């Protein structure tokens, strides 16, 4: 090669940690004790040492990382495509074959991290060598590149041809085996760096990213901070606040996730399926029609969801409407209207801000207003002062006050009210539609829902988690998922992967060592 290892000045910043990881993997594969089984491979009359077969590589990967065959094949293929392994026979296609095709590990000289970007001059020399060695030995795309390069660097073409001849002559001095190996290595390198048409390049990256952390913050024009004493003063303030911030114990937070996930589990279509059926699976969009934002009769699950948090009640238009009805009965509907008006202000257009602020004031805050809201005097004072210079956040304090009032007072009463109980009783539970599809096998056991949503115990003890549905753990094309509530399991059964006891530090103490293949599996997509 004419050029030495490429300078990293032109190399994009090391946004390729995957390359060093692949290299570490490849190095450990070549470990004499723990690495892949190497053998000598006979090619015609030459014997090449340190060759491995595709099967050996797969086995090693499966064993070392506890993964399935499919994943091992995928990983092995990626290694070959990035040029870390090359096939000794037919090095035109970088694929991992599971037959007796011998592979060898690429020499570090040709690794992507060492010799990148590939130099045009080197490519020209390579093509020239190929051309000289065998007339007409170039592929179509290579011929095109050759002509292109010839035009581009025609002034140094003599150098190119001279180098090519020298390298060919030097190669002839080597043993046949070495010559073959070096030729394969070089060919693989160029297959990776100049892929033939139709083969995606593994070197493609997105637009260049800049990661320099040394205060290179570009400032758009405008009255924004510059890196002055002020900036650092603010930084110090921010950090001081961070030091003083109250922190919750991790164990408490993790409990919260447990509670949240188990509460929402039955509402998650991917986890628990949905009734009547998942539209994407059965091509039937009844589910969407029944859960439309303006549906007349809401489903049971939907009504139950209003009880989870105040936010979810307000986010659902039907829920909000019913809550408004309830508030009207209690003569406090102006609270919700005020909150809605404040939301409109906060998220509305900038141009409408003064008008909206004024309208809200007239309707809700002015003494003797038609729909006067009850805010405590301190907040009211602050708000009235702020109204002098209206901006979109001027009503934030008042809005929060009213929100909390509704949340702590009206909302719990709503949930206990007859109105809500009637809604629950009248709510629809859609029947499951039977899947009619060519893929249905009559002999296969039907996947049925064990429990209708909403019924059954939702009380989950801390250590028992709803199982991930079967759809994730088999390779069969499962389209309906089973739903198994923990409470239905016989008491003595230990669930797989019971959540381990969390240490107070809450460090990475769940998950444990990599799971065995029986637990996870690859799922090849059908069709």
């Amino acid at each position: 090669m004419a050029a030495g290892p490429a300078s990293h000045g032109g190399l994009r910043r090391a946004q390729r940690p995957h390359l060093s990881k692949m290299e570490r993997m490849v190095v450990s594969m070549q470990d004499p004790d723990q690495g892949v089984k190497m053998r000598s491979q006979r090619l015609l009359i030459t014997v090449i040492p340190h060759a491995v077969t595709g099967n050996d590589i797969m086995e090693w990967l499966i064993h070392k990382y506890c993964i399935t065959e499919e994943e091992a094949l995928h990983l092995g293929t990626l290694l070959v495509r990035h040029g870390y392994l090359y096939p000794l026979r037919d090095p035109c296609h970088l694929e991992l074959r599971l037959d007796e095709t011998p592979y060898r590990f690429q020499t570090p000289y040709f690794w992507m991290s060492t010799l990148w970007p590939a130099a045009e001059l080197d490519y020209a020399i390579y093509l020239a060598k190929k051309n000289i060695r065998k007339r007409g030995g170039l592929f179509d795309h290579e011929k095109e590149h050759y002509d292109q390069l010839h035009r581009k660097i025609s002034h140094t073409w003599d150098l190119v041809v001279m180098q090519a001849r020298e390298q060919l002559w030097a190669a002839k001095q080597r043993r046949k085996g070495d010559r073959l190996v070096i030729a394969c290595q070089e060919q693989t390198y160029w297959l990776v760096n100049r892929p033939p048409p139709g083969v995606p390049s593994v070197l493609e990256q997105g637009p260049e990213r800049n990661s320099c952390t040394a205060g290179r913050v570009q400032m758009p024009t405008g009255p924004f901070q510059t890196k002055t004493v002020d900036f650092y003063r603010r930084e110090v303030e921010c950090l001081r606040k961070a030091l003083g911030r109250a922190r919750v114990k991790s164990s408490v937070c993790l409990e919260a996730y447990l509670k949240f996930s188990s509460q929402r589990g039955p509402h998650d279509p991917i986890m628990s399926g949905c009734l009547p059926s998942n539209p994407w699976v059965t091509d039937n969009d009844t589910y969407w029609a029944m859960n439309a934002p303006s549906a007349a009769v809401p489903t049971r699950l939907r009504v139950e969801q209003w009880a989870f948090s105040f936010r979810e009640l307000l986010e659902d238009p039907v829920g909000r409407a019913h809550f408004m009805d309830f508030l009207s009965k209690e003569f406090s509907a102006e609270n919700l209207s005020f909150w809605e008006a404040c939301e409109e202000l906060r998220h509305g257009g900038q141009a409408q801000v003064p008008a909206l602020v004024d309208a809200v004031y007239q309707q809700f805050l002015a003494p003797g207003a038609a729909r006067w809201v009850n805010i405590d005097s301190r907040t009211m004072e602050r708000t009235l002062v702020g109204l002098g210079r209206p901006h979109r956040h001027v009503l934030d304090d008042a809005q929060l006050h009213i929100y909390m009032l509704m949340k702590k007072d009206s909302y719990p009463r709503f949930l206990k009210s007859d109105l809500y109980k009637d809604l629950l009783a009248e709510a629809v539970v859609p029947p499951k539609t039977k899947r009619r599809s060519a893929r249905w096998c009559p002999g296969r056991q039907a996947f049925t829902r064990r429990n209708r949503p909403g019924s059954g115990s939702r009380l989950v003890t801390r250590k028992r988690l709803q199982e991930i549905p079967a759809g994730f753990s088999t390779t069969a094309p499962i389209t309906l998922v089973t739903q198994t509530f923990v409470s239905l399991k016989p008491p003595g059964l230990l669930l797989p992967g019971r959540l381990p006891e969390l240490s107070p530090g809450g460090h990475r103490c769940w998950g444990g060592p990599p799971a065995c293949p029986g637990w996870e599996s690859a799922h090849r997509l059908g069709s």
Partner: protein
Amino acid sequence: MKTRRTLKGHGNKVLCMDWCKDKRRIVSSSQDGKVIVWDSFTTNKEHAVTMPCTWVMACAYAPSGCAIACGGLDNKCSVYPLTFDKNENMAAKKKSVAMHTNYLSACSFTNSDMQILTASGDGTCALWDVESGQLLQSFHGHGADVLCLDLAPSETGNTFVSGGCDKKAMVWDMRSGQCVQAFETHESDINSVRYYPSGDAFASGSDDATCRLYDLRADREVAIYSKESIIFGASSVDFSLSGRLLFAGYNDYTINVWDVLKGSRVSILFGHENRVSTLRVSPDGTAFCSGSWDHTLRTKNYLFVSLQVWA
């Protein structure tokens, strides 16, 4: 889980996608500047716009479903109102909203069509008024390109998280423009951040091949989702509706599904032939859509690129 729909029509790498609140429409953008709105249930294309720039890395659907926003190497975020009038040219009504000094990496509407939050390669995030294009608030603090952002599903709706090339994930207060919390445990660029459905935590996917869960109240990282056999970076992450599952698309063309609570991998999905660049769960959680850089060479003249919807 398997692919239920394949949306073919982009001629080049799909870079970003977003769901509409109606749970079936999506908008997707690609490297050649095309932004397409699909009804992914029927796989019909409903609108298509060609941006004057390439590498449209950010796109977002307005909450009302009446507009889309997109941007990329043009350093701007443009909002296009969607019209069903066949005669109208969508590009004619385009509004240029955001102006940054480097590429736009992510954008998102806030609770309404009137405000847009953007993240850019110039290291800042910004909040804009759509109607006037006025800058309402800017967020400085990242030391390098900001690559992603996500709005918090909180009651007061005032914070968002952003992740950048400086390996930091920062939580911002939209009203004051201050950084409220910062997390720096990743070893490489953070490509994607997404809030846990309760709003108390968020997950991030990074080039160091791990996804991590950060809790806001505990103010620290609480879980790492990684495996020795996964060596390529995670480009996008999203939670299922209950927050039990974390879907992550990786640069090694696969999608890994993680059990958030147990910290282990549930499943790996193959289905793309090039890196998965974007992944979003639908608003009602019935499916998720993944977009990738792959193309299938049919004839010499055209290439298809796929977006896939899984359920």
